[in-house]
Structure formats: C-alpha cells, structure tokens
C-alpha cells in the first residue's frame, strides 16, 4: 500500500475540482449540469482520499489556492476540451495507483479510473470528437 500514489491522486482531484469552476461557466445548460455532476464526483473522491490518507498516518496534500489553466477558456469548445483533458489526466493518476494498491484501495482506484474514463468519453461526445473512446483509458499514448 503506497500513500504516495493516493496523495498524487488527491493532488489531481484538487486540480479537477478547481478546473470545473471556469469550465462550467462556458458550457451550455445540459453540459453545465454534467460539469456539476463531475465536480461533485471529484469532491467525493477527494473527501474519501483525505480520510484514507489520514487513516494511513499520512498528511493529505491540501489544494493549491489556485491553478493555472493550460489555455484561456474563451468558449464552449475550449471548455469541453479542458474537461476532457482533466478527466484523462485524473484517469492516468488513478491508473498509476493500481499497481501500488491492493484490496479496497485498488477497488477504489479502479472505480475512479473507470468513472474518469466514462466522463472523458461523454465530454468527447459532447464536443463531437470521434472516436469518443480510447483503447486504454489512463495510459499515456
């Protein structure tokens, strides 16, 4: 069991939660509802990680006061692109936790990887990106 892998996952969840704020304001109504659900899912993962890391005797890394967005979110297209990338990145971090974990922690990591991969596919569909799926979610291509 490696607290480092889970701490890295927590860092990624903090960043995802932050990013969905500016993403949400650029989206249409239906997509914005998806963004709120995604943000809530990331908050749940964050809270569970804080509890788990504390139980492991590790100090959960706090969120940064703010995060630099990789490009300006000027419109819906940019917002959907960043939402996809946020889910891809979070998926990669959870995937990397799989070899480092066992039992309940591995089950959590797999569920998180799967959820991120499904949300990435939904964002690609909303953005009209084809194909909307990738062969190995979370794996660097």
């Amino acid at each position, binding site marked *: 069991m490696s607290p480092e892998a889970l701490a890295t996952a927590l860092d990624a969840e903090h960043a995802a939660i932050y990013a969905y704020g500016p993403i949400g304001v650029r989206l249409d109504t239906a997509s914005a509802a998806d963004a709120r659900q995604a943000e809530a899912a990331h908050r749940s993962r964050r809270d569970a990680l804080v509890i788990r890391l504390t139980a492991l005797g590790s100090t959960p890394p706090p969120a940064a006061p703010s995060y630099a967005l990789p490009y300006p979110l000027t419109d819906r297209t940019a917002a959907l692109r960043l939402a996809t990338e946020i889910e891809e990145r979070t998926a990669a971090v959870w995937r990397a936790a*799989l*070899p480092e974990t066992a039992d309940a922690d591995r089950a959590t990591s797999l569920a998180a990887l799967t959820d991120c991969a*499904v949300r990435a596919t939904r964002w690609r569909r909303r953005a009209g990106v084809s194909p909307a*799926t*990738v*062969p*190995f*979610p979370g*794996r660097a291509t």
Partner: protein
Amino acid sequence: MLTAAVGAVVVYPMAGCGLFGDEDEKAQPPAPDPLAPLLAEALSLAGQHEAAMAAFPVLAERLTPVAETHREHVAALTKVIKAPEPSASASPGTTASSAPPAGDAKATLAALRAAEQKGQKTAAQACQAAPPERAALLGSIAAARATHLEVVR
C-alpha cells in the same frame, strides 16, 4: 541365465524411458494463465462487434472503434500472457460469435451492451486479483469496456 539377465537389464531402461517420457509430457501441460479467460472474452467481444457490423452496416461507424479496441486488448493480453497470437479461426469464441446476430439492429446493440457489461465485470475482477505488474493494463481494459456502454447504443 546370464544372457537373459543382461537382456532384461538392457530392455528395462529403454521401456522405462519411453513410458516416463510420455507420461511427463501428458501430466504437465503448461498451466493456463489466469488471464486466458479474459483474452478469450476480448476475442469474443471483437468478433461480436464485427459480426454486428457485417449484418448491419449502418452500425459500422459506431462499432468500428469499439471492435478495434477489443483487438488491441487481445494483442496486449497476448503479449502479457506470452501466448501465441491467436488466429481468428482457432478461437472458439470468435467462431461462435461470427454467426450473424439474431434480431434487428436494436436487439443486436442490446446484446452487445450486455456483453460489454459482463466483460467490464470480468476485467474488473481480473484487475482486483492481479499482481502489480498487470493491474494497470487490466484496469484500462475494464475502464474501456465501461466507456463502450456510452457509445454502443
């Protein structure tokens, strides 16, 4: 008496050699890899999507990337297991599933969704039970099958 005894001694190891040599090969086939069922399922899923596209060309755009993903999973699992690359004709899964799907396109999609759901469960269980060096690959396979439910509809 002496000649007979020598003859018996000479015959015994020869017979013994053949007997035990054969027995050894039959008694110890290479143990099947625990991922063999997952590999067979990936082949079967690829075959089912390909059969569906052959029967309903209108589904091709939707199902082609999904079928290709299953083929990529087959290749990755084959590499990990170090099994010989399975040929389409040699696989019982592919042979069984290359039969044209029963029913209309809607029923076919429903059957594919059910197969993907089952496959996601199999892959998740394999990931949970896997040694560290296999966990990431199996996690990606499970996640990929989950994403297929978003597009196979």
